[in-house]
């Protein structure tokens, strides 16, 4: 984070943080609601344990309070980019499976997808304010390198993966709120203790 931040940049940063926090909060609320609808619609058990989704960084981190702001932003950006891709895939699979039969679930997925994209945009803007380069998306790089196509999953596996994605996204939403609040503090010291760890 730049030591000498212009007032407009600070204002912009604060605004981005504020919006990001609220977006993350709304995203979490929507994801929680979507999880209920998804479990019910897909016929899954809400208490079913799902293995970690491949490609999604875990929200839980051991030394969260020791992370720098940039580090937090980068981790968040990586995570939400992954979620964006996964949700887009889920939405595609949802449409293939159900067509227009359950438009509500599809709209909810699309809404969450949009929020994830928006949040990623917020993170990118914050990173720009941090004068940090925005890393390229892995998918694009992989696409350029010609990555192998993802293994074809069974329908049940797709459902379970979707459940895992939504659960992890909910976790990440909580973490993102905390990260942005940390970033929104007036004089954030890199590696400083977070102090207030407000829950969203």
């Amino acid at each position: 984070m730049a030591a000498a931040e212009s007032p407009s940049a600070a204002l912009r940063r604060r605004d981005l943080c504020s919006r990001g926090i609220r977006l993350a909060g709304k995203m979490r609320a929507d994801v929680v609601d979507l999880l209920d609808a998804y479990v019910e619609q897909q016929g899954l058990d809400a208490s079913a344990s799902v293995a970690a989704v491949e490609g999604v960084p875990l929200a839980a981190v051991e030394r969260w309070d020791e992370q720098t702001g940039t580090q937090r932003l980068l981790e968040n950006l990586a995570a939400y980019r992954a979620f964006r891709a996964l949700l887009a895939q889920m939405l595609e699979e949802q449409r293939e499976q159900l067509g227009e039969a359950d438009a509500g679930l599809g709209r909810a997925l699309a809404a969450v997808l949009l929020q994830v994209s928006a949040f990623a945009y917020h993170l990118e803007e914050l990173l720009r304010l941090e004068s940090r380069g925005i890393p390229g998306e892995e998918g694009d790089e992989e696409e350029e390198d010609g990555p192998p196509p993802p293994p074809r999953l069974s329908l049940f596996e797709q459902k379970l993966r979707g459940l895992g994605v939504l659960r992890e996204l909910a976790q990440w939403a909580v973490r993102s709120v905390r990260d942005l609040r940390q970033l929104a503090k007036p004089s954030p010291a890199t590696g400083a203790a977070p102090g207030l760890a407000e829950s969203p």
Partner: protein
Amino acid sequence: MFSRWNWVACGFYLVLSICSPDASGGLVQSCGHIIPESPVLALGSNFTALCILNESCLDFGNIYASQIIWKIKNRLVPKEQYREINRTVSSVTFNDTSSLATPLTCNILADGQIEQNIYGITVTVGLPPEKPKNLSCIVHQESRFTYAMTCTWNPGRHTFLDTQFRLRYRWPEQIFPDCIPKDVNNSCTIDDTQFFVNTEIWVEATNALGKAESDPLVVDPIDIVKPLPPQNVSITSGLLPTVLQLCWENWISDAVMTLKFNIRYRIVGSTNWMEVPPEDTASPRTSFSIQGLRPYTEYVFSIRCMKEDGAGYWSDWSEEKTGITIEDQPSKGPPIWRIIDTSQSPACWTVHLIWKALKPHEANGVILQYELTVRDKSSLSSPVKKYNVTSTNHTLQLREGTYEVTLIARNSVGPSPPSVLLIPASNSKAPVKNLRTLPKHDKLWVGWTAPNNYVLKYVIEWCLMSSSSDCNIEWQIVLGDVQGIDLKGIKPFKCYLITVYPLYADGQGSGQSVKAYLKQDRPSKGPTVQTKKVGKAEAVLTWNHLTVEEQNGFIRNYTILYKTIDGNETVVTVDPSKTEYTLSSLTSDTLYTVRMMASTDNGSRTGPDFTFTTQKFGKGEIEAIVVPVCLAFLLIVLLGVLFCFNKRDLIKKHIWPIVPDPSKSNIAQWSPQVPAKHNISSKDQMYPEGSFTDVSVVEIEADDKKSFSEQDLKPFDLLKKEKSTSEGHSSGIGGSSCMSSPRQSVSDSDEGETTQNTSSTVQYSTVVLNGYRDQTPVQVFSRSESTQPLLDSEERSEDHAGGADSTPQRQQYFRQNGGQDETNTDRPCFDKTKQITHANEGDLVGFVQLQISGQSSQPLGLGMEKNTQEAAVSNVLQTCTEGQTVRPETVEENPLSVDEMPKSYLPQTVRQGGYMPQ
């Protein structure tokens, strides 16, 4: 010849070339075309079109660009606008496309005359789209998770072309699908609105002439949200009577948007909303306690919300919910008043205590009962009486005195403060002054000036006055510092009696009353007038006052309008307090029409017409005429009587002429030969007055007939002759006597001696029927003619006043009955009679005794020379006066001899009761 056929062939070819199917695929192969094809032109711009002829047509039809003419619809375009570019191309130019119309056709004049259409185009004229303006967006919450953003804009002028509007929005790195309006061109709704990202929104308008974009609107949709109002609003009564708790649910989670609220409330039935101060509800919450409410009052609540920071829009108000606060003690005592009825006895009051139910905000609950306490202040030993009443009135029977009444209203929570009313023995305190009223729209203001003393309260009574029912009193109590109130519920055109009582701490002032109308109208009917008394020149009119229902206002005056049939109407204004008026100066014996008009401040009404006729004579006029006339008559009569009295002798002489004295008759010359055989005096006794009527009897003894000399009888003959013509004169005396039968005369004569002598006497009598003056007697008996000389003398005596002179000699042959009839003779007769009386002592037997009753001749009156039979004479006079009869008196005579009878008299058969008519 060839050329002609050549032209025909060319024309035919031209037609075929225009109409024949195009080998290239079209049905018609045109000889040319227009460039541009169906252009869309901006309104007001210039335009140039080219008509290009096909080369093939040139060869076969000999047509060239110089032959081209342009038409708009069927209107020829001026050739000044043409230009021949080459032999196959002609252009037309329009400086202003507004003059263009569809279709624009290119035509050719074949052979200089035949007009053929080559081609035509459709020209569309319009405007390019304007830049949309005033773009604004609002996000409507449709459900808990769905939000729809609706953006509206001003599309600008009409373009006359098909113009597409689309709403476009994007994030910095993501473009969303356009929102295309349906059926409208100024709004569009985006369903999948995402918050917390600044979204760029703009409108793009496109038509054939161009494209325009609005200024972009960059907004985070979360800042333009109009949320749904709170739901499931509920109201809970708290422990306090002035508090209600409002609870609700929010549609938006705090994660999305924190809210602030507005709470409004009102009392049921009221339209005025009260609002909880906004700062009290500026933070997120789901409940709120509203304080300062009225106990036991039902309230209506409503709530709305918006984003806490004020960005966005207020939601609609939630549905209204009602709640009621719990009860509290009544805040004040009921106003109480009394009506005292002393009609039964002044010392025994019937006190009607009346009080008003507390208003809801005063009762603070349901009043269960009223506790009434009455204390007699004039007697300390009297117990306090308590009553529990559920109604709002109570009647007591009290003796005259001073009482203190205390009233408490009680609800389920507790009692009210007491209301105290002092009822003094008399309202001896000072009353209010200057009581007045003033209408104010639909209210009647009553004002007064306070008395000098301190007044606790005023009681205002008012009631609608009615002629048919009692005044139903309404009342109101106001504090002592008030000097005027508005009375509500007052009806227009009705009379109200308003009374104000001042209430003091130690008594009560007497009431002051005033009558008032909220609004006046003219009377509903006019007075009915009638006459009470009608005279010659005046008439007393009476009428009844209009009833209070008919008045409709204060009667300011009555107006009497009266007139004759053809006369002018006279108007008289009468004070409204009167019910009688006297019209004066009327014309006598004239028909008048009168009607009466009652007037208020707002008009008049006339009653029915009434007609009367004045009298011909005034009061006393008739009396004034009749009484003098009567008096004059009486005076005349009196004078007449006096005159008659004074001239009674003269009158008597006319009415009752002097009866000739039989003693002076000629017959008296022989009468001394006839001895008198009967006692006259005794005969008077035998024939009491009235026992003989209308009979004249002359008894002459048959033997004495001879004693009548011829000379003596001559007068009888003469008299007889006169009798035939003037029997009426004698009938006044003798006529009436003739009505008696001879028998009667006989029987009524001497009952003893006369009856005994009838056999030896001849009775002469004259019976004259209807004999008076000119009346012709019906029957005349000859015997009566023996008296004729008497009557003759009598009549002659009437004709000759004091006619004794003419018959002195005949009169001397008669003598009155025993001297009694002397009263009917004059003095000479009397004197003669005296002489005869002496002679009769032994000789005058058979002389006619004639008694004439009631014919006293005063001039001849009874002198002091009356004999001893004077008393008897007066009796006879009295009798005759009463009965107006001539009472014959039977005289016992010695019958005359037949020889001595005068020739003119035939002696009748001497037989008692018989007659011998001549």
